[in-house]
């Protein structure tokens, strides 16, 4: 929080520190700081409060208009959930499914993480909590086969929303990224307009590696939105500015806890204000 009243080097340093410590990153921070220094000169800004508003305004511009999750396609809407290990994919799916159920939609969860210990059991518990149907195979089976099976079932049972859980995978593992591409191909083959949403789940505490994650997952499956999790911690999630600006991927959802209700739509005003809180 800046209590600084005049615009001087100390204030610039203070603002730069806030951005860097929020994981905004060196390049984006330097660019933002250069811009506001120029604006201060050009527009003869003298009030520190005006400077802060200027900076916050620029940061909101980087994020663009708030975009929410699209689910009003002709059923079934297919949402594919991807991301590296441990970021909160399975939990976010539970929360999202619950929200869809509250909206009166029928939901089918797909347990396509056939690899990790008790991944299917974990999703099953969320399915019970959110009151959804679930398609699963034996552990070790082909994720693409589970997805194929699920889409047939969704069509047959006239399901509104299909949400696919996938195994966590590091973006650097070529064979795992190939597996994901195959899953995506199966979806599109069975439903030409699907997947309607591909959500990349990112942990808000992630550092600059998030950019690499976004690049490679975008390359593999295309990404329509980010679900930024664990914002209830002390991390600010500043990595989304660069991701939004350089890759054009919007943040659509934020996770704010481990409970079934702890899912919000992304609000860039709130997000930017929280960064300076």
């Amino acid at each position, binding site marked *: 929080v800046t209590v600084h009243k005049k615009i001087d080097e100390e204030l610039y340093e203070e603002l730069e520190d806030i951005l860097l410590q929020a*994981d905004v990153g060196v390049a984006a921070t330097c660019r933002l700081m250069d811009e506001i220094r120029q604006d201060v000169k050009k527009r003869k800004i003298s009030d520190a409060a005006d400077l802060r508003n200027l900076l916050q305004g620029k940061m909101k511009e980087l994020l663009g208009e708030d975009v929410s999750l699209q689910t009003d396609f002709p059923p079934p809407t297919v949402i594919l959930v991807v991301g590296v290990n*441990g970021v909160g994919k399975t939990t976010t799916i539970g929360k999202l499914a619950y929200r869809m159920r509250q909206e009166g939609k029928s939901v089918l969860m797909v347990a396509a993480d056939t690899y990790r210990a*008790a991944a299917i059991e*974990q999703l099953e518990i969320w399915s019970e909590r959110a009151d959804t149907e679930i398609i699963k195979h034996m552990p070790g089976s082909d994720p693409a086969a589970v997805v194929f099976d699920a889409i047939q079932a969704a069509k047959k049972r006239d399901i509104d929303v299909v949400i696919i859980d996938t195994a966590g995978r590091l973006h650097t593992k070529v064979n795992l990224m190939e597996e994901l591409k195959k899953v995506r191909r199966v979806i599109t083959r069975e439903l030409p307009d699907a997947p309607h949403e591909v959500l990349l789940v990112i942990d808000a*505490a992630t550092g600059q590696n998030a950019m690499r994650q976004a690049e490679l997952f975008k390359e593999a499956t295309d990404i329509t939105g980010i679900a930024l999790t664990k914002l209830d911690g002390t991390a*600010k999630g500043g990595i989304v500015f660069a991701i939004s600006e350089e890759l054009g991927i919007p943040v659509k959802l934020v996770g704010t806890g*481990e409970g079934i209700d702890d899912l919000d739509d992304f609000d860039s005003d709130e997000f930017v204000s929280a960064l300076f809180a």
Partner: protein
Amino acid sequence: GLAEKLQGTFKKLRGKGKLTEKDINDALREVRFALLEADVSLPVVKEFINSIRERSMGAEVLESITPAQQVIKIVNEELTALMGDKRSDVVFNSSGVTVFLIVGLQGGGKTTTAGKLALHYKKQGKHPLLVAADIYRPAAVQQLEVLAKQIDVPFFALEGETPVTIATEAVEHSLSHGQDLVIIDTAGRLHVDEELMEELQEMKDAVAPQEIFLIVDSMIGQDAVNIAKTFHEELGLTGVILTKLDGDTRGGAALSVRKVTGCPIKFVGSGEKLDALDPFYPDRMSARILG
């Protein structure tokens, strides 16, 4: 990486005659950027730069015909020294059961690492017991049980009991079942969750672990200092295990955690399989951070 950037910085200065303090400060700015881009926390970066400033302003750099290399040498030496000793000297109870408490934030790799530690020490002739003290996360108990089965290690869980009770009962159980190493997996929790941090405190008081390992996801950014500092202040960590180093994250969190807790990084996780547990090599970590 940093080496190339510094070569570039000093190249521009060649032919200008003697290097000045300002020139060195420009070089230190490059080091600062490199560390920040590698996800080292800002306060740690500032402290590190200050600690190498004096040496960097010395004859060793100013009078060298390869000043960039000299700065790199200083940075590498200081960084590696900060990273600590490669020896992972884990503390074992000389008379009785040894207890490991595995703690950390959500999703960092605690459950998987508990399994890895069990396999590691089983291969060394110990008799581990894996204890499922995460009663909150859906199927957490099953997850650890599956891992225990995979490596044929005894497993302990209790329905309807608190984590503190589970931990105490597990140690009791190990005494009468010939297990000499009790590895307790706990629920992921935020360092700012007072209630859950208190729960860990109670578990520590109840079973007096020889090792309290903080599991840290190596892709964590600036928040690493906050997490490590709080866990260390409230529990007194004995070691850190850095996970998911099989990715391409630079891993600056390693320096942050090391600087702010003084705790040794005793192992690193380098994959999802239970044999993917490696010793920590400080020089390799430094090289990785500097890119």
